[in-house]
């Protein structure tokens, strides 16, 4: 029983991790339909920048995280301006490959011996220690991740559905010319959207890094899963992304537990295939 509960918590924590990363991508991929494969790269940069803040600037965790979020946000906005904006009318594969180019660049940059090098880095947990509830152990860091993912979801959903800026993002993603005709400065909105997405990626990375580890290729592992999660949840649906994240996490953890750990990833992806085969639109269709 305790083992089962423990696994439940493990799944929740893993789901929180996935959700946090997926939410950053929901904006650019789910809403704006830009297949930004460099998102994993931004995520990775976020972790390294926080690491750099902690070790080089010797500042504490929270300011390091904030600086990292701001820098990655700016970088993401720049990326929109220089690459995705000019490619906005090209077929999907074009921005996708360009984004891969950016990902390669980021990884090579960080892995360069003169920058951080290819070795693993570690960010210490800002709130070390564990909580034990009914024999179930969970670390503070994981609780923070779960809480942050729920907060991010609520915030993002509110932002998109209830604020005018949120509506302008959706409007722009659906018809750029139409958006301009009603007076929306689409250039600014596009960059803003990327900036938010970048900041979310950096925050996610900084929160998750203490649980996992910091490597130049850390974004690649996440990339595939979070793209899958967004499709699973239903493109453009924020609650869908959360549900998708937890669903993936639960199938991995419990699939691993009851079937075979070595096949946990296979089970996770198989679940995706199954869900899409049954509901080709994903779990949640885009709402209005």
């Amino acid at each position: 029983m305790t083992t089962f509960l423990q696994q439940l918590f493990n799944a929740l924590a893993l789901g929180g991790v996935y959700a946090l990363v997926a939410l950053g991508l929901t904006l650019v991929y789910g809403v704006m339909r830009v297949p930004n494969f460099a998102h994993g790269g931004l995520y990775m940069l976020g972790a390294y920048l926080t690491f750099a803040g902690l070790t080089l600037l010797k500042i504490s965790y929270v300011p390091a995280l904030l600086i990292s979020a701001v820098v990655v946000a700016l970088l993401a906005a720049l990326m929109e301006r220089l690459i995705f904006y000019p490619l906005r009318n090209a077929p999907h594969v074009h921005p996708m490959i360009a984004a891969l180019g950016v990902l390669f660049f980021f990884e090579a940059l960080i892995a360069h011996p003169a920058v951080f090098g290819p070795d693993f880095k570690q960010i210490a947990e800002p709130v070390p220690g564990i909580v034990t509830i009914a024999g179930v152990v969970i670390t503070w860091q994981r609780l923070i991740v779960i809480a942050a993912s729920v907060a991010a979801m609520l915030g993002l959903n509110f932002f998109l559905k209830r604020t005018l800026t949120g509506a302008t993002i959706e409007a722009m993603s659906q018809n750029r010319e139409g958006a301009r005709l009603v007076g929306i400065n689409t250039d600014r909105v596009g960059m803003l959207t990327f900036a938010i997405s970048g900041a979310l990626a950096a925050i996610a990375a900084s929160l998750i890094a203490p649980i996992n580890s910091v490597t130049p290729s850390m974004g690649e592992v996440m990339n595939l899963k979070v793209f899958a999660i967004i499709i699973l949840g239903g493109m453009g649906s924020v609650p869908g992304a959360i549900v998708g994240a937890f669903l993936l996490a639960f199938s991995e953890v419990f699939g691993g537990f009851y079937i075979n750990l070595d096949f946990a990833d296979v089970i996770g992806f198989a679940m995706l295939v199954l869900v899409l085969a049954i509901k080709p639109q994903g779990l949640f269709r885009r709402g209005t």
Partner: protein
Amino acid sequence: DKVVSIGFSGPLSGGAAFYGKDTQSGVEMAIAELNRKGIRVKGEKVTFKLVSLDDRYLPNETATNVKRMTSQDIGFIFVPHSGGILTVQPMTARDNFLLVAYSSEPKILEAKNPMTFMLPPRYDNYLQPFTATQMKAYGKKLGLIGTTSAYGKQWTDAITAEWKRQGGTVGGNNGVDYNTTVDYSSAVTKALAEKPDVLFVGGPSQPTALVIKAAREQGFKGGFIVMDQAKFEQMDTLIPATYLNGSVGVLPTKEFPGTSIFVNQYQRVYKKIPTSEAGLNYMGMNVLAKAMELAGSTEPKAVREKLDAAAKALPLSRSVYKLMGVTDIGHVDAEFTIASVRNGKYTKLRVAKVFK
């Protein structure tokens, strides 16, 4: 002057780059030292030039790289992964090069390729003392959470067999891929559900440390058997030293007798802790150079003949590990030392029986 090019094909980008770079650094450092010191082969001064090509851990890329190098008449090529080694092994005779293999895959030796020079010592030597020590200290039940790389799987199989041979019981295999797993908690939970006394863990140091951490946090009080790929000296910078108490694994390179020169030098140049990846490849390159001197030739076959003699003649300062020689099938015969750890202090373990 004569310039002899030394080839290297390994993962220098992507997820395994850290590993590739570590192995490359050993060769590189040895070459820099040898060039500084000056090597003479048959009276002629020889300088070495390292030609490194990235293969991203992909065997087909290794094959392409090796073809490129042999087209340029490079006669000595270091490859640090079994897939690449096995792929290019059949090419050694035709294209006349000496394959310096850094991998402990037994199949490499089974091929009985006359032009292979394999560096790592056999890991099966670790099994008996690891098992005996931990079984005595903690109990008879072993849990498995090793990485699922080829090497990790071999280890898992081998330790399972040895543990059973010594009369213990072994739980289900809860191995996960240390390179792609996002959170180890669930694997650890599953392994701990069987209430093991000892856990087998290991993969690259950093994720291994995270596995150990998760196990301790979930209340595991027993001991760890740490696969040789993970290095204590790297792990204890990542997690509280007490988490490692009662673990057995390989002795940190810096604790070997006579390695201080190498360790100091390495830390000065690369600003990081040298591991056996660097150390063994450093040694391999030195053996190679020595064999050229002894053979009076830089012809790969001639050099191959003198590897054993070279290994025996090499001073400890250049070999890092104590070398007994090179076997007929081209395997380094080195002394290896293992240790158990408590509060950052290492206790060397005695090895009862040595496989050759």
